[in-house]
């Protein structure tokens, strides 16, 4: 039901763009105003969220320890899994951010018929997540060909490597295949596995459908219902150089794609997609596991914290305490 609700939400968004840019002819709104607003909301909202996190105190030293802590000299320390130096922390963060180290630890409990439980390594989520994030990154970079003139060599290089199999014309991008397969896997996993379905909410399904919708509408307009790509570039270049113009006759499917991207950009800072910035601010990852060596000072200002003293507690519950025969300091 939650999945269906999210699916209909994405269909409704696509319909808004189809009706708005297609039937009502609001090309400027859907091609220029909404995308620009969305980009602004994305950048400003992202920074605002990160600053809010930066303002939050970390009262305790709570890094996760995944190996042997630094100890006596003859006990071998796991320097990256349980780092006690800044270099170690940086390496651990790099492993987490670039290779999703913690997903690689994923275990799948298996219950045998005789009641024994076994925890077996399960790498599918790690593989799916890695495929999804990296293909998304490449697709994002590849799109810079619409926002640059002349197109930088790096972006042309990514483009030619991505289409190196030279299948059909326009050439098939390998990342398109990987991307759709990975998003489909990430979705099916939520629907098929009962315990993951149980904890899946609308805010889990919605971004998946939204991203799938963006991918499919992009693929559809590249390989099937073709749009006037030169007019698209005229629009995108105008958008980023503030000489806004909305060329006619691009094709409604382009506005569906662009509107779904705009919705994703606006939704991003409001949602759990903020893990993009949040991963760098996780105290369980970015702190040094040397709490025995260095004292972690709680940065809260204690003079501002209101203590609930015993006297206040007794004032609050005196009648009930007396009723139950609990001794009190001040009688009723």
């Amino acid at each position, binding site marked *: 039901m939650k999945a269906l609700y999210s699916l209909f939400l994405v269909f409704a968004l696509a319909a808004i763009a189809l009706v708005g840019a297609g039937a009502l002819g609001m090309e400027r709104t859907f091609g220029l105003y909404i995308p620009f607003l969305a*980009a602004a909301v994305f950048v400003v909202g992202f*920074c605002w969220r990160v600053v809010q996190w930066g303002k939050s105190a970390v009262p305790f030293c709570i890094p996760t320890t995944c190996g042997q802590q630094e100890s006596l000299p003859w006990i071998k320390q796991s320097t990256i899994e349980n780092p006690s130096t800044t270099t170690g922390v940086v390496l651990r963060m790099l492993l987490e951010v670039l290779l999703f180290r913690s997903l690689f630890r994923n275990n799948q409990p298996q219950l045998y018929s005789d009641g024994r439980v076994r925890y077996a390594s399960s790498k599918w989520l790690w593989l799916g997540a890695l495929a999804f994030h990296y293909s998304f990154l490449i697709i994002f970079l590849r799109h810079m060909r619409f*926002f*640059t003139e002349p197109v930088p060599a790096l972006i042309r290089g990514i483009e030619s490597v991505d289409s190196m199999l*030279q299948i059909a*014309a326009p050439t098939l991008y390998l990342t398109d295949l990987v991307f759709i397969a990975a998003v489909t896997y990430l979705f099916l996993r939520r629907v098929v596995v009962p315990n993951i379905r149980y904890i899946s909410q609308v805010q889990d399904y919605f971004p998946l459908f939204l991203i799938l919708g963006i991918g499919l509408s992009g693929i559809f307009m590249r390989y099937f219902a073709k749009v006037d790509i030169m*007019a698209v570039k005229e629009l995108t270049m105008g958008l980023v150089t503030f000489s806004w113009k909305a060329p006619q006759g691009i094709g409604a499917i382009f506005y569906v794609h662009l509107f779904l991207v705009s919705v994703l950009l606006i939704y991003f800072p409001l949602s759990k997609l903020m893990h993009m910035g949040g991963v760098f601010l996780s105290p369980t990852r970015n702190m040094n596991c040397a709490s025995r060596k260095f004292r972690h000072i709680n940065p809260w200002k204690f003079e501002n914290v209101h203590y609930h003293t015993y006297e206040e507690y007794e004032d609050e519950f005196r009648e009930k305490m007396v009723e139950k025969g609990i001794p009190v300091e001040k009688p009723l």
Partner: protein
Amino acid sequence: MYDKGKILTGLAVFVVFMTYPFWNNIGRAAYVKPELEKPRMAKECVENVEYMRAEHMAMLNEWRDEVVRNGMHEYHSSFTHQTYAKSLTKTCLKCHENKDKFCDKCHTSVAVSPYCWDCHVDPKGVKQ
């Protein structure tokens, strides 16, 4: 704010990266859609302009397969009601004489590098 230096540095990197399309174009000439050189000898292409604009790459790919694999050399146009040879060099380049002023204009602008020219030669290009 705690760890101000590190967080603000990270955010600065993020903002610079994400606003790349905006600052990269500052000071560059405004983008104009490339002007294509129109053929002098012919008035119309094998199919209508909208169709050619959208589907020329698929058409050439199909022509290649039909000529090389099935030996079918003739293209019957439902637009001009004429028959053409399925040939990049003999048909397309006959009217669109200059690859640099026609094909490459849009292809370069949207960073497309078709592999036609891995095998085919551009006759005008060879003479230069």
